[in-house]
């Protein structure tokens, strides 16, 4: 394992120290329990939007803390959901008196830990609502399974709900909006290589020199199928077709297209893939009105990409365009 680290057991704590040093104008980082809050928070009278999850997906979630997006984020160990006391402390630190909305990626661990935290926060006197994000169409959903995973769509939910909270929407309104966005966002990813968790020391899975894994999760979970590498045109179609079929998206739909790098795929390949996705969508009469391209929901140094499609309407566009001022997403401020 070759990594720029000192010791696997201190990676998250040291990275948080670096993050605090890098963004003194935007963030405050608390350790033990670990959480990140916006430097100008808590904002009185504003719903606190709180998220979190395992580390290793940077900039998710800490890089999205700031004006117009998250009020707090709780980083767990690498690929491991945070513990309830972290989340409880983050809620308390972000609480502006208007309640807290927890945006939780749908993984058993995250769900259970945030559930416990929510119970503790309610005892602390904070009104709490939780919305699960489950946008990954690679996973079959059913009443009898853990359900779909939360992946790239998380960034879009956090941006849009963050903007609503910033303009003063109340807790019920933010919760309803979050559910609405979750209802119309879909994602799928593929990997060319797997990342290596520092405390594991070996890649999460091993692919042959010409293999790729379709439908991977962001925690190095293997996907649903392993196939030979194909031209980018085919790769992009493999991700886009199931997404389109699922919601479904159709002719005339207005969408946000998010082309995400899993971490190790360079921007030149990502733009290339984005161009293909735009072309395929245009061919289907789907109108791309907004786009995001970059490494925003990563899986350590994994090479690969995911596509996320969100159906837009005027309100969502307005909220997407609203000013945001975080380490990883910033405009209008």
């Amino acid at each position: 394992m070759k990594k720029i680290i000192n010791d696997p057991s201190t990676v998250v704590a040291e990275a948080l120290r670096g993050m605090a040093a890098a963004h003194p104008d935007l963030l405050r980082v608390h350790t033990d329990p670990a959480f990140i809050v916006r430097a100008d928070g808590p904002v009185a009278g504003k719903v606190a939007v709180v998220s979190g999850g395992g580390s290793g997906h940077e900039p998710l979630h800490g890089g999205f803390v700031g004006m117009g997006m998250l009020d707090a984020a709780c980083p767990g160990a690498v690929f491991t959901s945070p513990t309830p006391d972290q989340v409880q402390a983050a809620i308390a630190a972000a609480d502006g008196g208007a309640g807290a909305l927890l945006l939780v990626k749908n993984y058993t661990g995250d769900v259970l830990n945030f559930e416990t935290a929510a119970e503790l926060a309610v005892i602390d006197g904070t009104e709490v609502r939780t919305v699960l994000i489950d946008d990954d169409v690679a996973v079959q959903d059913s009443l009898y399974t853990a359900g779909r995973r939360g992946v790239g769509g998380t960034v879009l939910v956090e941006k849009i709900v963050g903007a609503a909270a910033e303009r003063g929407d109340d807790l019920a309104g933010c919760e309803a909006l979050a559910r609405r966005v979750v209802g119309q966002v879909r994602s799928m990813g593929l990997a060319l290589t797997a990342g290596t968790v520092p405390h594991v020391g070996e890649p999460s899975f091993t692919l042959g020199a010409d293999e790729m894994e379709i439908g991977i999760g962001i925690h190095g979970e293997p996907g649903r199928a392993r196939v030979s590498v194909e031209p980018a045109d085919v790769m992009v179609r493999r991700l886009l077709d199931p997404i389109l079929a699922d919601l479904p998206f159709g002719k005339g739909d207005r969408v946000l297209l998010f082309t995400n790098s899993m971490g190790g795929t360079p921007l030149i390949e990502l733009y290339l893939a984005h161009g293909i996705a735009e072309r395929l969508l245009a061919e289907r009469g789907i109108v791309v009105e907004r786009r995001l391209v970059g490494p925003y929901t990563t899986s350590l140094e994994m090479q690969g990409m995911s596509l996320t499609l969100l159906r837009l309407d005027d309100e969502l566009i307005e909220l997407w365009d609203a000013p945001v001022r975080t380490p990883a997403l910033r405009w209008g401020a």
Partner: protein
Amino acid sequence: MDCTVDGVLAALRAVTDTVVAHRDELVGLDRAIGDGDHGENLTRGFTSVLAKFADADQPGTPGQVFKLVATTLISTVGGAAGPLFGTAFLRAATAVGEASSLDGELVAAALRAAVDGVVARGKAAEGDKTLVDALAPAARAAETAATEPNATPAAVLAAAAQAAEDGAEATVPLVARKGRASYLGERSAGHLDPGARSTALILRALATSASTAAQGPAGAR
């Protein structure tokens, strides 16, 4: 011989030793069908538990021990295992109440409470390829063993450990329906569930520790 608070603490040390010794195996199992952190999660958790006991005043009852284990696991493990193992110990604590030592029946009751807590939290049924596939048969075997006259904790735990090991082994052909392995669909079959394996390891450590204690201090036989 009933199990006093010292016996419970000794058993916890044995559990921690086992978890640390099997860390890489559990990581490997979780890499195959999950995200490769189960061994690391439990190692972090039980190591913290021991540290907690080193710092804290010696708890007076087995129930107090279980409760401190529960809160420590919940606040240090994260992931699915943290709340699930934490809940198991929390329910066990409630089940044994203020008792100053545990007999075979209380041990079985603690295991029953643990399973019920895990199922309430995680909503997994037997056959879903989770730690419930080890813990549920363990609790049943413990209950049966506890009906024997003068069933010792050691005997009850030995029965539980055997059932957990069989149950864990039986997860291999299953297709996961809960937890991270469920994302793999059919591809999850053919692998041992890491949580079922760790559950069996923990129960075996408890059983061995209880039987060693029953035989008295080393060399005193």
